[in-house]
Each structure stands twice: as structure tokens, then as C-alpha cells.
């Protein structure tokens, strides 16, 4: 290990210790119940919601994939900024809506919401399982992203697999103890580093290698014009239709991502969420920076083997090791924060809905969760959630160590798959006539169509994102079932008890 590597490794180690410290410290004096762990007792104000949700949107993909896409494809990467911003416009309504429903009925996850809305534990379980299938790969992507970042920032002296294990341990330690509040506090550290690092890079990298951003633009126009318009450079059909359909699909889907919903539900008031919808889009301006850096790499290192390393290759090439280390820590935390929230949401999905006996809304289910935060029942559910949180992390870690490519391929489908949950989780709150049978039939159809398109390599289909086609099929089936054979009438009781409405069917 040479001097630079030693310095970078030391700074990285200190940063990880600090991360665990902040994460653990945030839990002091808080309730020990499930609601504190999973949704911070619904007590976060505007600032922490902002930090947490900014932390979730700026992931390791922002450092690796954004620069990488910019380097290899060009214009199509603009979809990232577009769907995140449009997503906040959608979130202006969806965030407070999910918050209101969940707070009113004491719910903690999308599966919990679906179970309560349809008075059906099987529906809740189905939502939890589908959501898990599509977010475990995401955890693995973050673990591997962390490996790449740490390996690059320490000049190769920390092995990819060692870095993967470190990221898993750090994230698990603070998420198990402090829950979502831990992630929010670590996010504070992360967001500060990201903002400083990214603003610095925006100025420094083009200045160092070229004559500044103006010169970079001039050279892009004269030498690489193909990168500057759709469909970009050899982007595999990522044309205007792809852009439009992906932006719409992802913008709606991100509002029901289990991690996003964890953020919503932890808010103190609906206006904390509404205010975030108008503050967070500003943060997306930072995403243009890795794009600029990726474009710069086109001229400096035109033959990179792995485009995802575009940003870190320039950083390690041009900056002294302490600065490299700080940027690397920002990148590493950008993996750890989302990873921790993903693991927490899986724990929450399973802990109550699948393993904990449900929320009691289903009259056919035997057990009813009630009582106060911190009582024996609540603690049991919390421990189950924590257990699943560890297991989900371990599966993703094992995947990243032994099958680094299998699950990552699945993560490409995450948005398309979770989009199929939009009707059952979200439309259900706005449309009273939607029945459990219709929602489930629609969801299964959507998942089948999506999988078929993907397996037959028809995604995108003539440019249209396969998830949009699947969601359209989902909605057609859903409408048909509602109007032709709705099954259990509006899942909510018309008069009297919940039992009456549900007993009418099956």
C-alpha cells in the first residue's frame, strides 16, 4: 500500500466509524417501539424529511451510472433528472395522501396500507412479496456500487468484496439500532459531503482537463454531437418515446417505492411533505455534475473499459488523495444510506404483514395487532422486522459476493415491477369501487406482461418502456374485473362492521 492509498484508506475507515457513531447516537432517548424504528414515530420535520429523501434520491448510481451513461450514451441520461423532478410533482399529492391514510389508521408500509384498504391479509402479503422481489436486487446494486467506489478511492487497496462486506455491516449496525431516524442522520453527513464534492467537481474537472465548461460544450458540439440529442450514442433504442414513457412510469412509481413511502410516513405533517415536493427538485440540479464529468471523460479517457468508472477515474487521476477520499466517502455514503432504507423497508413489509399476523383489518385473520408502542406484541413485531432486515441484507450481500450479475439484471426491472403495485396501493385510495379481486388480477397480469416482454427481449417495445405496456394491461384487466365481476364489493364496509362486507364473498 503506497502513501496515497494509506491516506485514503484511513479517511475511509474514520468516515465509516463516524457513520456508525452518528447512526447509533441518533437513537438516544427515543421510543423502542416498531413505529419509531420503521417510520420515526411520524415525527420528522421538513429538514429531516428533506435530508432523508435527498439521501434516497442521490444514490451510488448518481456517481457511477450517471457519469457512465453520460459517457456511453449521452442524452438519454437526462431521463434521471426528468423523472425525479416530475416524481416530486406527483409526490405533492401522493405523499400527503399516503401519509394521511397511514397516519389515520396507524399503518407503516405499502403492504400494511393494501391490507387495510382491502381488509385482506392475503393482498397485503402479495404486495409485500412482490415489493421484496424487486427491491432486494436494488440493495445488491448499492452494495456492489459501494464496492466499486471504495475500491477506486483507495487506489485498489480495499478489495471489492471487502468493501461490500463493510458496507453491509455499517448499514446494518445503525439501521438495526436506530431505524429510519439513523438513516436520516447519516443522510445529513452524506448530503453535506455530496453537495461540497459535487459542486467542487463541477468547477474543477472541466477546468483541469479542458478550458472549463464552455470549452467542454464547444468540443462536445464539434466532436461528439451524437451525444447531445436523442437517441444518443449507441443507446439501444433509447429514443424520444423511451424517454417519455420511462419518465412517466418512473415518476409515478417512485412515489410508491417502499423506501420513499418510509420517508413519507415518517413526516410530522402533510405540509412537511408538500414543502419537500417543492424543495427537493432543486437538489436534482446536482445530478447535472456527474453528467458533465462523464462527458469530460469522453475527451480525457476515450477508451474506458468500464464506463461506470468515468467519474472516479478522473477524480483519482487529477486530485490529491485526501480529496479523493472525501469524494469517495460521499460516494460510499450514497450507497449506504439508500441501502439501509431499502433493508429497513423490507423488514417493515415482512415484520408486520407477513410474519407479525397482519394489522388486524382482515376479519378472517386470527390476530389483531393493537396496543401501545413498546408493549410485548409491538416489540415482537419489531424484532421480526429487524430479523428480516438482516436476512434481506444477507441475501443481497451473498448475491453480490457470489452472483454479482444475476440479481443486478433483475434490478433493471425494479421500476417496472413496482409500477404494477401502483393500482393496488395508490389507485385504491382514490377509487372506492376498486375491489381486491380486481386489483390482484390487474397486478398479476401486469407482472406477467412485464416478465414476458423482458424475457422475449421486447423491452423496450418499439421504444415504449415495457413497464408502461404492462401497467396498461394491468389497468385494462382491473377495469374489466371491476365492471364485470368485481367480487367482494367495495372492500370497505358499507354499513356496520368490516365482517359484513367481506363475508359476502368467497
Amino acid at each position, binding site marked *: 500500500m503506497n502513501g496515497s492509498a494509506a491516506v485514503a484508506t484511513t479517511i475511509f475507515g474514520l468516515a465509516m466509524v463516524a457513520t456508525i457513531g452518528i447512526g447509533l447516537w441518533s437513537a438516544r432517548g427515543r421510543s423502542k417501539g416498531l413505529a419509531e424504528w420503521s417510520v420515526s414515530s411520524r415525527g420528522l420535520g421538513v429538514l429531516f424529511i428533506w435530508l432523508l429523501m435527498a439521501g434516497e434520491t442521490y444514490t451510488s448510481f448518481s456517481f457511477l451510472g450517471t457519469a457512465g451513461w453520460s459517457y456511453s450514451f449521452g442524452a438519454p441520461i437526462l431521463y434521471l433528472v426528468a423523472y425525479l423532478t416530475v416524481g416530486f410533482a406527483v409526490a405533492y399529492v401522493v405523499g400527503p395522501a399516503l401519509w394521511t391514510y397511514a397516519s389515520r389508521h396507524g399503518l407503516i408500509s405499502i403492504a400494511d396500507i393494501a391490507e387495510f384498504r382491502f381488509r385482506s391479509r392475503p393482498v397485503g402479503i402479495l404486495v409485500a412479496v412482490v415489493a421484496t422481489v424487486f427491491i432486494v436486487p436494488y440493495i445488491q446494486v448499492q452494495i456492489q456500487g459501494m464496492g466499486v467506489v471504495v475500491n477506486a478511492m483507495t487506489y485498489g487497496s480495499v478489495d471489492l468484496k471487502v468493501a461490500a462486506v463493510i458496507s453491509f455491516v455499517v448499514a446494518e449496525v445503525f439501521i438495526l439500532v436506530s431505524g429510519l431516524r439513523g438513516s436520516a442522520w447519516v443522510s445529513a453527513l452524506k448530503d453535506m459531503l455530496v453537495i461540497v464534492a459535487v459542486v467542487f467537481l463541477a468547477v474543477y474537472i472541466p477546468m483541469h482537463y479542458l478550458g472549463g465548461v464552455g470549452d467542454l460544450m464547444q468540443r462536445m458540439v464539434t466532436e461528439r454531437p451524437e451525444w447531445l440529442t436523442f437517441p444518443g450514442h449507441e443507446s439501444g433504442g433509447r429514443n424520444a418515446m423511451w424517454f417519455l414513457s420511462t419518465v412517466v412510469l418512473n415518476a409515478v412509481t417512485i412515489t410508491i417505492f417502499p423506501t420513499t413511502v418510509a420517508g413519507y410516513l415518517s413526516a410530522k405533517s402533510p405540509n412537511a411533505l408538500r414543502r419537500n415536493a417543492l424543495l427537493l427538485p432543486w437538489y436534482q440540479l446536482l445530478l447535472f455534475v456527474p453528467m458533465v464529468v462523464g462527458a469530460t471523460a469522453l475527451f480525457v479517457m476515450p477508451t474506458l473499459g468500464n464506463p461506470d468508472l468515468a467519474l472516479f477515474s478522473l477524480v483519482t487521476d487529477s486530485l490529491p488523495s485526501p480529496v479523493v477520499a472525501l469524494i469517495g466517502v460521499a460516494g460510499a455514503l450514497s450507497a449506504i444510506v439508500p441501502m439501509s432504507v431499502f433493508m429497513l423497508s423490507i423488514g417493515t413489509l415482512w415484520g408486520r404483514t407477513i410474519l407479525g399476523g397482519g394489522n388486524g383489518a382482515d376479519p378472517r385473520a386470527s390476530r389483531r395487532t393493537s396496543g401501545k408502542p413498546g408493549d410485548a406484541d409491538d416489540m415482537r413485531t419489531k424484532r421480526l422486522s429487524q430479523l428480516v432486515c438482516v436476512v434481506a441484507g444477507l441475501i443481497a450481500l451473498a448475491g453480490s459476493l457470489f452472483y454479482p450479475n444475476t440479481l443486478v439484471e433483475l434490478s433493471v426491472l425494479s421500476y417496472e415491477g413496482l409500477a404494477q403495485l401502483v393500482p393496488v396501493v395508490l389507485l*385504491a385510495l382514490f377509487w372506492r369501487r376498486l375491489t381486491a379481486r380486481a386489483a390482484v388480477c390487474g397486478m398479476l397480469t401486469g407482472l406477467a406482461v412485464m416478465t414476458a416482454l423482458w424475457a422475449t427481449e421486447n423491452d423496450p417495445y418499439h421504444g415504449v418502456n415495457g413497464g408502461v405496456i404492462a401497467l396498461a394491461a394491468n389497468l385494462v384487466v382491473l377495469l374489466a374485473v371491476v365492471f364485470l365481476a368485481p367480487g367482494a364489493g367495495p372492500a370497505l364496509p358499507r354499513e*356496520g362492521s368490516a365482517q359484513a362486507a367481506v363475508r359476502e364473498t368467497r
Partner: protein
Amino acid sequence: MPPTAEDSGEQGPPDPVASPLDGLPALDGVARPSLWLLLVPVLLYGAAPFVANRVEPRILGVPFLLAWVIAATVISPLVIWLAARLDPAYRANAVEPIPADDLPGTDAEGGRR
């Protein structure tokens, strides 16, 4: 900071989780036309590859498509801000209306309205 109105209804039985809904007003069917403004971001971005898919003219040296998307990213939060300013729910810090809860008997599970 919008004022919080008085409690909107009677207390339900205690929730397993302390309810943060206390003291938040409901909208009771007030129209919210400003929410249509939330379509502006998707129109701005969605139009980009169709009407702005070119390099020239450059805006301050930035190729047109990129300049368009940057402009959309600056305009969108302003439009969302405007939508919020004109939204009665934002001004009152009201809970979001949930049609699924607008049925008699919804309180059966101990939720509060």
C-alpha cells in the same frame, strides 16, 4: 408557516401509534384547481425530445436540448411552489382527502377522521 386549525372532529379510540392527525383540518370538498399546474413539469420534460431535440441554437454555449432540460429543472420547482401557494390544502396544512375513507363505517377499525 400555515396556522394549524382546530381539531376537525371527535377523538377515536387510541391508536397503536400516536396520531399526528390531531388538530389538522380536513378540506371537505374544497376545489383545488392549482393542482393542474403539477402537470407542467411532465409537459416540459416530456416535450424535450420532441420539440427540442437539437444542438442549435445554443443558449450561453449550452446545446439546446440540454439547455431545455436545465430550464425545465429550474422552472419545475417554481411551478410546484406556485401550485402549493394556490392550494387551499397547503395553506391550511390540511390532511389530503382520501376517497377510500369517505364511507360510513370506516372508523370501525379505530382510525380517526
